[in-house]
């Protein structure tokens, strides 16, 4: 029997189109980058049983199991059910694998679970976000990073969420050792200075990384009770105009971030090029077409920003435009 396979269905079911004819790879979604060891063992088992015995670790914290024969897809979908259960990914029908692949795995750096600089539980927020947006076939990239170090490289994503804390200063506990000043300068932006033996924070310069808090030996610096976020927008890689995401809001709260991303999906539904190849168009290119104001109107609809949040009045992106010039300077 010759193969008769609907590759569009296959791709949406999170199987990869392979250059090796008749073969595919299963794409395991791991929102927030954490699964339990049992799921990892299951991945290894599937790779041994159905794949070529290798496992590919993707850039977006997913896992791909290559070398699977296309006719084994139904069996593989049954085998990976326990992994889907573990990672808590929304599913349409049990034992049928993933219901979509468009919206990419939601990435997270280790965040506060592990990293001394993490300002929030990145995995937790990533999972919450995944619950909200998935399944969805729109090609959207969302990533979370615990602090302004941006180890998760969220500035390459459509929506990059960066953890922030607002350092709280208790002058009565400060002994003027200047370590906060030193480490803010060396590890961060140099927002602190000593005035008359007490520390002054340039609130405009401060990026809320919390380095001062981590290094203060007396607890004169502590973290704000609230977890805050910086939202950076519409970064992308790719052939035409790769660029870094730009700052949109700082000191935002969690709910506003969720609402904005949800609204952005509605915006894309409305404005995506109906003839886009394979229904895939980066949001950034849609915004280039509709103009930023229209995008802004959509994403901020019914968003009740917390009082502390500061919003950019205008966002400009740069990056090389290969569709205009491929010259080296």
């Amino acid at each position, binding site marked *: 029997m010759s193969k008769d396979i609907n590759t569009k269905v296959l791709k949406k079911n999170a199987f990869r189109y392979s250059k090796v004819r008749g073969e595919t790879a299963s794409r395991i979604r791991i929102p927030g980058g954490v699964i339990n060891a049992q799921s990892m063992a299951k991945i290894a088992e599937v790779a041994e049983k159905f794949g070529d015995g290798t496992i590919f670790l993707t850039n977006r914290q997913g896992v791909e199991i290559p070398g699977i024969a296309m006719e084994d897809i139904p069996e593989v979908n049954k085998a990976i059910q326990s992994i889907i259960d573990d990672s808590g990914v929304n599913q349409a029908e049990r034992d049928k694998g993933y219901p979509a692949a468009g919206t990419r795995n939601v990435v997270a750096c280790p965040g506060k679970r592990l990293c001394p600089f*993490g300002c929030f539980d990145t995995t937790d927020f990533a999972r919450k976000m995944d619950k909200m947006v998935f399944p969805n076939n729109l090609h959207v990239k969302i990533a979370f990073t615990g602090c302004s170090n941006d180890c998760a490289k969220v500035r390459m994503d459509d929506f990059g969420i960066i953890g922030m804390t607002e350092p709280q200063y208790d002058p009565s*506990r*400060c*002994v003027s050792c200047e*370590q906060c000043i030193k480490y803010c300068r060396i590890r961060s932006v140099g927002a602190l200075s000593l005035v008359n033996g007490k520390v002054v924070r340039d609130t405009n310069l401060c990026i809320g990384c919390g380095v001062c808090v981590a290094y203060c030996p*007396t607890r*004169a610096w502590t973290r704000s009770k609230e977890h805050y976020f910086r939202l950076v927008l519409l970064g992308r890689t790719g052939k035409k105009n790769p660029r870094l995401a730009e700052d949109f809001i700082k000191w935002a709260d969690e709910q506003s971030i969720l609402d904005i991303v949800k609204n952005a999906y509605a915006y894309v539904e409305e404005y995506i090029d109906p003839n886009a190849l394979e229904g895939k168009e980066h949001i950034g290119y849609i915004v280039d077409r509709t103009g930023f104001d229209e995008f802004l109107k959509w994403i901020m609809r019914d968003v009740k920003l917390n009082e502390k949040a500061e919003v950019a009045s205008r966002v400009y992106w740069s990056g090389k435009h290969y569709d205009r010039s491929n010259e080296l300077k």
Partner: protein
Amino acid sequence: MGYVLSKEAFDEVLGKLSEDFLLYSPVRKIGEGCYTDVDVVRYDFVKSLDEIELEAKSNYAFKELLTPLSQTLFFFTENETKEADSDTRDVIIFLRSCDMHAVKRLDAIYLENKFADPFYERVRKRVKFALIGCGHSFENCFCVSMKSNVTTDGYLFSLDFDRDAGQVSCDVKDEDIAKLFEEAGASAADVVPSSVTENDTKVTVPDVVPNAVYKDKLWDEYTARCIKCGRCNFVCPTCTCYTMQDIFYTDNGRVGERRRVGSSCMVDGYTNVAGGGEYRRTNGERMRFKTLHKIYDFSKRFGYDMCVGCGRCDDVCPEYISFANIINKVNAAAKAAAAGEGGAQHD
């Protein structure tokens, strides 16, 4: 006089005590630790048993009341000075046995060291103590080695709380306070404050540290490992160093205030002198100074070691440097040096 009473009755006693005293105890500060959503236990004022952190060892010691991290001593104008107002209320500090022993060290430095420090004396006079029974050793504690595990006097009353039974046991030393317990309906009982008899961490303090140990290469390791953050000093119940600051107000440089702020022999600047000199440049030298001060030099003057073995320095060190281990290394080096010197005499 020993008493056993319910949690509610004990709170009644605390309520009565609050009329005459401020109560200063370990308190869990949610999310105020170094890292996100990590708590810190440090001292603050309380009114009831629930507010007192009894499960964990406090990360910072009680000394912040007696020797504040930052304190304005007086204000000055061109010709006059005015001492800063200070609280006049009496205080009961709740602390464990190791810290009770630390009080003695603070007193030695601030009251018995040739002359009494008036600012310390002023607050010290207002302070009484309540002993928190310490039934199990925490990580890094070595009070047994430092002989600070048992406290038999010096406190108004002790406190052991059996959470499951909802029952508080107190050894009350003070007659007036005993009355409060009786008024609250406490029943008389034989009470001995709990104390530990063994720690996992054990140290041996050398009797004599030969000069060779000052030059031993054991200190070099700490030049590489220690980040001179001073946390070990700031959490220590017996570190007493401070530095002075004269501040001239920015909008009128003719008036200002004199402050005394906590200091640390591990941080930069501690041994700086006019002309750019610095006595102990390397972190290893600083570690040597700190260690020998805690377990040797102080004792040469006062007859007992400064370190009480609370282990807070080991709890807090971001570089996992163990002070207890350093004591044992010094002991080994002292032994080796003594043997070496002894051997040399035979030659």
